[in-house]
């Protein structure tokens, strides 16, 4: 067990964070090169092959026209959920423990949303016409179909992406200014531009705080609505086992669940590989996130039981068949794996000893996300293979191209994150300072202007 470190001072924060941006070791370059290499090889290469060959490169068939691409899309949207949502909720509830982790959590939101958006392109049969799904005046005098849940999706994700980008950027402005004051050369120029002339006056702080709170309030309903809308892609159909009113809360809870687990993973990695971060990301964070995981897992389990109940209570043969297929059919092992990882394993978080141990929490968080990916796959997989006409029943197995693209999407995410830690101060310096004991001797006066 790691001992509690000495309380860091104000200057230490700046030193640690700026160092994490400016000083780049060979390990980082090796990691970045690997990530970019894997992204190109496992994501873009198979995707281009698929663009050339057609969607037949994936395992999709009739009736399983939706495959892992859509599952991955939901998964990445889900993963994006906790970041900004958690950050907003905790900001509004004044939780001090949020401060060390929220920047990386928000970055996770942003990047998983980007990866999710890419999956929309991968999923489409003719992605080069994606702009037709956007409402813009055009020479064809055609609008998109506003009744379509898929169009709601485009709107929701666009809004969420815009909102969370502004949110993370606005929260980083004072930190950009702090880094600007401690760097030289091109970095100084870049941070001068990014910090928008931040000087740290009272008025500026006041306005920042006001705008930040305003955005936080705005983003919470947005985050809830985004995944509800994603769920409507399924729930608005009349496919047995998809046509359920519980789907919106089911997706939202699932999203926050997998997102929280994702944050645990990212925090573990940051803590382990970024020098000095173990002072700021501590057991307290893992303890709190563990509690959150436990609660979310219980709600998630409840909704799952409810889903089974609704299917049984409907009393129709199609719903029975879908239910039976889910529990005991071709994909049943995956279903029970999901139950084990997402409903049973998180119960370990009841023990405080478990919540405060880092490696077990890491393993749990990864298990939860594997389980949640399975859940998304099953939503697409089991229900489409058992629809109304038994003549059109079928099974679907992902192809190598699909598996490779799933793997590649993680590399894409890691690449984006690795670039992020070198540009954004990955810990919010000014907010971490707020949680510290104010030093007796020197009161902190924000520096004015850049030193050059």
């Amino acid at each position, binding site marked *: 067990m790691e001992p509690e470190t000495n309380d860091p001072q104000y200057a230490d924060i700046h030193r640690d964070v700026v160092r994490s941006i400016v000083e780049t070791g060979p390990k980082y370059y090796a990691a970045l090169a690997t990530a970019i290499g894997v992204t190109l090889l496992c994501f873009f290469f198979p995707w281009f092959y698929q663009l050339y060959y057609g969607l037949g490169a994936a395992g999709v068939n009739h009736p399983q026209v939706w495959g892992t691409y859509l599952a991955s899309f939901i998964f990445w949207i889900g993963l994006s959920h906790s970041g900004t949502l958690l950050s907003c909720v905790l900001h509004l509830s004044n939780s001090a423990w949020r401060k060390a982790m929220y920047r990386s959590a928000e970055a996770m939101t942003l990047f998983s949303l980007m990866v999710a958006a890419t999956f929309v392109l991968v999923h489409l049969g003719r*992605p080069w016409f994606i702009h037709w799904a956007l409402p813009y005046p055009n020479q064809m005098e055609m609008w*998109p179909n506003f009744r379509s849940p898929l169009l709601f999706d*485009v709107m929701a994700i666009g809004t969420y992406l815009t909102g969370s980008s502004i949110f993370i950027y606005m929260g980083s402005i004072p930190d950009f200014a702090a880094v600007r004051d401690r760097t030289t050369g091109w970095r100084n120029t870049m941070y001068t531009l990014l910090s928008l002339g931040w000087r740290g006056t009272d008025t500026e702080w006041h306005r920042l705080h006001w705008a930040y709170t305003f955005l936080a309030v705005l983003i919470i309903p947005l985050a809830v609505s985004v995944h509800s809308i994603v769920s409507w892609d399924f729930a608005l159909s009349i496919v047995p086992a998809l046509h359920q009113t519980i789907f919106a809360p089911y997706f939202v809870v699932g999203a926050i669940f997998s997102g929280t687990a994702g944050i645990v993973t990212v925090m573990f990695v940051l803590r382990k590989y970024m020098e000095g971060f173990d002072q700021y990301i501590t057991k307290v964070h893992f303890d709190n996130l563990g509690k959150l995981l436990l609660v979310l897992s219980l709600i998630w389990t409840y909704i799952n039981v409810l889903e089974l109940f609704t299917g049984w209570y409907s009393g129709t043969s199609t719903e029975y068949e879908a239910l039976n297929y889910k529990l005991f059919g071709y994909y049943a092992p995956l279903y029970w794996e999901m139950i084990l990882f997402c409903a049973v394993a998180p119960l370990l978080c009841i023990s405080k000893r478990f919540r405060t141990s880092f490696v077990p929490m890491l393993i749990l968080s990864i298990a939860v996300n594997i389980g949640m990916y399975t859940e998304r796959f099953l939503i697409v997989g089991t229900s489409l293979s058992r629809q*109304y006409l038994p*003549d059109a029943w079928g099974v679907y197995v992902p192809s190598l191209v699909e598996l490779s693209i799933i793997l590649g999407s993680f590399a894409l995410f890691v690449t984006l994150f690795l670039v992020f830690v070198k540009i954004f101060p990955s810990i919010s310096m000014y907010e971490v300072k707020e949680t510290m004991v104010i030093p007796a001797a020197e009161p902190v006066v924000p520096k004015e202007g850049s030193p050059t």
Partner: protein
Amino acid sequence: MSILERFIEGWKKYRKPGYYDEFDYHWAMTIDLDQCTGCEACVTACQAENNLPIVGEKAFAEGREVKWIRIERYWEGEYPDIKLRFIPMLCQHCDAAPCETVCPVSATYHNQDGLNTQIYNRCIGTRSCAVYCPYEVRYFNFNDHHWDSPLEQQLNPDVTVREKGVMEKCTFCIQRIRQAKDDAKDDGRRRVRDGEVQPACVQTCPTQALVFGDRKDPESQVSKSLNNPRAYRVLEELNTDPSVVYLKKVDAKG
């Protein structure tokens, strides 16, 4: 006309009650299962008429064949007492089609003839229409198809050859309907007469189990067929309001 006036005009039109059910023609089909022998002549005729690709053995095994009309086969009972049931399944041209609402780019919509149409040029390949369709009659082009020479010579010039990434389905041979409507117009007639237009499957059916026509014309063969007491619609409980009506098979007792 100014933009505003045009908008008001359009708004009034769309607000008219029953506007969406008001069709010029209302094409419908009845399939008499008592006469159907399951010979699959309709499947072949459709394949020839509509440039359906021959996907090959591998793609067929993967479940990627394209058959706008297919004969579904069901076994009833256990071995000694076994019965084979079959039913031709094609796009039902639902008046309340689930596939139409879900398409984000309106590539599938209901036209003024009561047809559920698919615009290949507009399709971006989300495949959600195929998921939403309870009859599973929408087919996706998983890759480009090619016809070995000289087979490309027999492609129907009135029908598009679909590229990869596009959804397709039964059109009730819309090219023939268009042709018949044009002919009717050229003759100075207002409407297409009953029997003047037939989709390839109807034309081919050796037992004349398939009947096609305008449901709005009470004298047409299909309208009379619709009043048959054996008439039923597949998955009627889903309220999709299909335009294809089946006439129940009469079982010989024993």
